[in-house]
């Protein structure tokens, strides 16, 4: 059924503050539904992006009313973020959470790519998908190496674990991370939501890895987090460059709030846990209230009616966490050797020998690469690398065990 948030009242922002006791939530079972963990991780990243954007906006204005509106929205977002992030259980180690982050990266990116109407944006998603897919494999090997545990217990084999585009070859010159952006007038509303969502997810991942690398003890673990955090920075650059900078501050605020509505609505549609359902539903109602505030700001300060820039309804299909094994395998088979070249992509064997990619590879990989070392060390200890290939042999012959 068509759902137009602009026709919903939601909860007025003045009624959205919650007490500390209301913010104190019972964490999830870390061995529960992996996709509930994915939803929690994603929505935490979405709230972080919303807060950071509102901070950036606030620094571009000294208007008291606008700053107060942004401050109010940010504080509510902070409360929402606290609830969502604290659903992660305390007995879930940073490495276990990391495996959840990579499961998000794989199944979110793959789902977005499968549902993306614009071929160039689909290509951007496919490209980074194979890199995040490889990160899951590297972290799963680290998990087995230092904790002696099976990452498939966390992923429930809904996401396969095997090499993607090897992390060691993902490092490229920063110039090759910048892509052309979509045009804000012609872009499909669904594409805009997809890009905003993946930017937020990758940004959270980048920050999480570098924030937690210093808490780890084993050098191989610390080094792996540092290395992969740099790929996540590449991914943030890659995805954020897809956004048209023509949108005004007020339009960007509306789009942020609209995406939050879209995502809480999506999480609500697929959540089986009734307790989580109530949280998603509450946050959906709150975000609708916040969307109305953003729309009022757009009307007042830019003279634009929200209906002029928003679609008449949310996408028919909610963003869904589900298994994407077949899709990931097909992209692997076709694109594992693709590299970024300027604002586009090219097969590795078509890059000229003097391409900056090779020079950059030489700089960062000189002296060894943690993502290779972790697998090598695990092979020494366990006699093989860790994989969870449930659909048969690896689709790329050169990456088979």
């Amino acid at each position, binding site marked *: 059924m068509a759902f137009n948030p602009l026709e919903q009242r939601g909860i007025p922002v003045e009624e959205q503050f919650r007490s500390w006791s209301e913010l104190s939530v019972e964490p999830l079972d870390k061995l529960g539904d992996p996709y509930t963990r994915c939803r929690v991780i994603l929505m935490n990243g979405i709230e972080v992006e919303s807060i950071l954007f509102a901070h950036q906006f606030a620094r*571009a*204005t*000294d*208007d*008291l*009313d*606008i*700053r107060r509106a942004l401050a109010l929205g940010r504080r509510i977002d902070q409360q929402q973020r606290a609830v969502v992030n604290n659903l992660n259980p305390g007995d879930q180690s940073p490495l276990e959470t990391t495996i959840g982050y990579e499961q998000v990266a794989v199944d979110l990116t793959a789902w977005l790519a499968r549902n993306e*109407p*614009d*071929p*160039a944006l689909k290509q951007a998603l496919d490209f980074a998908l194979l890199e995040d897919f490889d990160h899951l494999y590297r972290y799963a090997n680290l998990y087995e190496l230092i904790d002696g545990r099976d990452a498939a217990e966390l992923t429930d084999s809904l996401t396969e674990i095997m090499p993607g585009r090897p992390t060691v070859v993902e490092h490229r010159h920063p110039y090759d991370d910048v*892509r*052309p*952006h*979509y*045009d804000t*007038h*012609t*872009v*499909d*509303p669904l*594409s805009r939501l997809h890009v905003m969502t993946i930017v937020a997810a990758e940004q959270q991942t980048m920050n999480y890895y570098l924030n937690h690398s210093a808490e780890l003890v084993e050098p191989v673990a610390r080094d792996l987090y540092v290395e992969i955090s740099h790929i996540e920075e590449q991914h943030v650059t890659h995805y954020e460059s*897809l956004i*048209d900078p*023509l949108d*005004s*501050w007020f339009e960007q605020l509306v789009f942020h709030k609209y995406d939050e509505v879209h995502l809480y609505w999506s999480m609500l549609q697929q959540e089986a846990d009734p307790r989580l359902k109530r949280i998603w539903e509450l946050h959906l109602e709150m975000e609708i209230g916040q969307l109305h505030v953003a729309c009022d700001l757009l*009307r*007042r*300060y*830019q*003279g*634009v*009616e929200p*209906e*002029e*820039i928003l*679609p*008449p309804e949310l996408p028919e299909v909610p963003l869904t966490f589900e298994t994407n094994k077949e899709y990931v395998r097909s992209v692997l088979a076709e694109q594992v050797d693709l590299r970024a070249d300027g*604002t586009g992509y090219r097969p590795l064997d078509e890059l000229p020998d003097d391409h900056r990619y090779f020079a950059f590879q030489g700089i960062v990989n000189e002296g060894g690469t943690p993502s290779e070392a972790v697998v090598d060390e695990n092979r020494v200890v366990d006699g093989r690398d860790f994989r969870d290939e449930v659909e048969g042999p690896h689709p790329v012959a050169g990456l088979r065990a």
Partner: protein
Amino acid sequence: MTILVPTKATGATAKTAEMTYVEPAQQVTDDELAAALPDAGLDMAFVADFLSAALTHERCGRHLYRSVAARTNNPVLKRRYEELGQETERHAEILEDLIAGMGGNPSYVSPAARGVEGADTKLVESTSLLGGSLDVTTREMVMLQAVFLAESLDHAHWQTIAELADHLPDGDLKDRWARAVGEVGPEEDEHLEWARETMGKMVMLQAASGTMAAVGAKAEELVETVRGWFS
């Protein structure tokens, strides 16, 4: 409410550029743009780009008027902003009809239009984002300045449209352009002159008033003063 922003749903099209990607179904090329328009002995792809920029400016102008009409504390200005906004919306409709009548797409957003929209967005933002460092009377001036700047470009656009009309082959199309220029041109003259004159009056009102210049004047008093301007 009039929808003024071109979107995929309204049939928006655009050209790709070094850093702008456009979904294939929404892409247009210079050749396609030129082929859609009648041959007037001009670079018709360039003409299409220019008309798109002029139309975008009218649309942004309508947004500007909506915004300043909602925020001014002066009832005379509010009324005038509303009137000018309605006329600006009518000018946008006239341009849409002209473009469509030539075989073009009023929802085409040219690179030149993006440039205009970027400037217009910053123009309207300038009337609010720095509001905290402006007193009530200065905010009124900043809003009026934005109107003046917007009307200046608008005026120049319509003068150019009139020159382009001279190049069209004789016939129905040229007549339609002439009628449009005949209707809009005088109103654009009036809009620009009103903005210029009113800016001057506003300056003189403040320069001549001790209350306006008083440091520390209360906001409520200033609002009352602004409310009384031009009455």
